[in-house]
């Protein structure tokens, strides 16, 4: 039945005469535990649509955006995805804010053959490659590579890790352990903490006492890393300290205060708009995004909103380049995108790469005087 419905949906889309409206769908975690992702994502999508429609649309057609709020619940997300495919008859979908909801939706969009640009972080979304699934956020594996690249460049051989047990921290911990083995760096201490824990000094005391330790890495998300950073300063630990891209925002510096001085982390260009070189391909798009987003919402930009901003702009670019808004053409168009400067990085998709970002999307930053500077 589902297959039949999906097939008729596609038939209907194919047979329909040239419509004056391009329908694009989104199911995001606007409320609920992942609302810090979905909220800026939804606002960024609306902003792109407003801007494009004001400028006359794409290929003379207006964009219609249909957003549902799945609250990061995979069951709800599935219901909304089916509604987007069957009732709203969208030509492409941006989002699912989390990796969990994305994984639940992949079979639906693969079967319906609707391009699906996910905003989830997990590498499993695009590895192995699925023909209709793309994603814009870089993976935690890339963040680990960037951190270990920096550690190796500083000539360090032994590190300690303290990871959150939430989805983000647990996944990144696993990736970092693999990367460590691959680069020949030894993890001499491996501790964890609960995402809402108030004190991590016991774990840090053990890490500090590990023999020969040269640096500490903290994969985690939310308030945990800020607590770890404060405890780190409380104990007077002097080792180089690495955070993940999960806390790459000014609120981390605010929460961790002076303790964050000297912390290094991999982040996107969004954090350092003023420090980018004048010929940086991302400079213009980053500055544009920051000024229009803050003007529209009155809130500071976040990396997550940037994922959605890039996702929708990539879909629109594919429609523009192909001169068609058929799902199949959008999919092909996405795969052909080369050198597309987004907020998150420069995208180069191919038949074998549906993420399109490489390590250059990450910049190693260091916190100095309560602000971000490129690490040297």
């Amino acid at each position, binding site marked *: 039945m589902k297959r039949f419905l999906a097939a008729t949906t596609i038939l209907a889309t194919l047979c329909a005469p040239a419509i004056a409206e391009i329908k694009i769908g989104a199911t995001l975690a606007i409320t609920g*535990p992942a609302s810090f992702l979905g*909220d800026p994502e939804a606002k960024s999508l609306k902003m792109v649509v407003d801007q494009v429609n004001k400028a006359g649309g794409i290929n003379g057609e207006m964009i219609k955006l249909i957003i549902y709020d799945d609250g990061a619940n995979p069951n709800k997300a599935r219901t909304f995805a089916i509604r987007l495919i069957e009732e709203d008859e969208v030509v492409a979908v941006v989002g699912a804010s989390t990796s969990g909801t994305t994984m639940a939706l992949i079979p639906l969009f693969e079967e319906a053959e609707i391009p699906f640009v996910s905003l989830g972080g997990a590498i499993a979304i695009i590895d192995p490659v699925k023909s209709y699934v793309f994603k814009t956020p870089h993976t935690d594996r890339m963040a680990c590579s960037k951190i270990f690249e920096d550690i190796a460049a500083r000539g360090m051989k032994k590190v300690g890790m303290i990871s959150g047990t939430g989805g983000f921290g647990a996944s990144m911990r696993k990736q970092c352990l693999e990367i460590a083995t691959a680069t020949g760096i030894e993890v001499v201490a491996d501790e964890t*903490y609960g995402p809402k824990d108030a004190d991590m*000094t*016991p*774990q840090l*005391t053990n890490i500090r006492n590990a023999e020969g330790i040269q640096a500490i890495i903290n994969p985690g998300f939310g308030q945990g890393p*800020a607590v770890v950073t404060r405890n780190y300063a409380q*104990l007077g630990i002097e080792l180089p300290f690495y955070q993940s891209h999960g806390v790459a925002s000014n*609120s981390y510096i605010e929460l961790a205060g002076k303790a964050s001085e000297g912390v290094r982390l991999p982040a996107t260009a969004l954090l350092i708009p003023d420090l980018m070189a004048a010929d940086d391909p991302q400079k213009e798009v980053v500055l544009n995004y920051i000024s229009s987003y803050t003007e529209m919402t009155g809130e500071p930009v976040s990396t997550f909103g940037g994922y959605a901003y890039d996702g929708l702009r990539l879909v629109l670019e594919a429609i523009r380049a192909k001169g068609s808004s058929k799902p199949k053409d959008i999919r092909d168009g996405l795969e052909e995108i080369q050198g597309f400067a987004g907020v998150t990085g420069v995208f180069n998709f191919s038949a074998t790469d549906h993420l399109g970002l490489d390590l250059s999307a990450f910049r190693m930053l260091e916190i100095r005087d309560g602000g971000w500077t490129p690490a040297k």
Partner: protein
Amino acid sequence: MSEFVQFCFSGLTVGAIYASVALGFTLIYNASGVINFSQGEFVVIGGMTTAVLIASGVPIWLAAPIAIIAAVIAGMTLYKLAIEPARGAPLVTLIIITIGASIFLRGLMQTVFDKQIHRYEGFSGEQSIAIFGAALLPQSIWILGGSLVVFVLLVWFLSRTKAGNAIRATSSDILAAKLAGINTNSTMMLAFALSAATGALAGVLATPVTFTSYDAGVLMALKGFAAMMLGGVGSPAGALIGGILIGLIEAFTAGYISSDYKDAAAFLVIFLVLFFMPGGLFGMVRVERV
């Protein structure tokens, strides 16, 4: 040695926070037999209000009392609007009402405040104090001191004041209390107000260490509830000792065994204690006269 002291400091700090939440539970339980599951939200109201006020330039000595008053108003409103109209209902119904109220308060805080994480500077600065080679934050002393003061006040209030005795009488037999001329309604309202104040004070003291956000109350309530169960439901001493014990068990497990088993170890101990001492460490076995 320095490790041991460090683990103790960590356990005492975290434990004192659990204890102060448990003390709030104890107060309402003593008045009504209800476990108030929106106790965690009182903690968040205290922390969030203080954080927002401090961010807008209000000094801490003014922000803290305002935050506590805000929580007291929330507690009294909760009683007036949700508990009082359902007074005749069985206890389970009342407990479920408090769960509903906690969800409502979380939603309300999302709109009144925001979804961000907040904190403010510790009252006596951020420079840690070195004791036996371990580092103690000055705020930890505030938290420990705060829960001790609340404990002493609570014991004094319940056993030495007229209002406190009224609370205990209401809990023991509401009809007899009424016949003895106690206004049980205002007594219950007083218990909710004081318990909200206790929770908010915990939030005000703990936020520089724990941070706070609209949904931080869930875990607070869970740990506070566990502390109360361990110590013995209804006993202020049990709430204090139970909270500190859970904090210490967590810290020592994280330090000496593995941080992965931190929460499991605490709950295993609670399980064992309740298995052999169903009333908790300081719990009274209730004798029913028939």
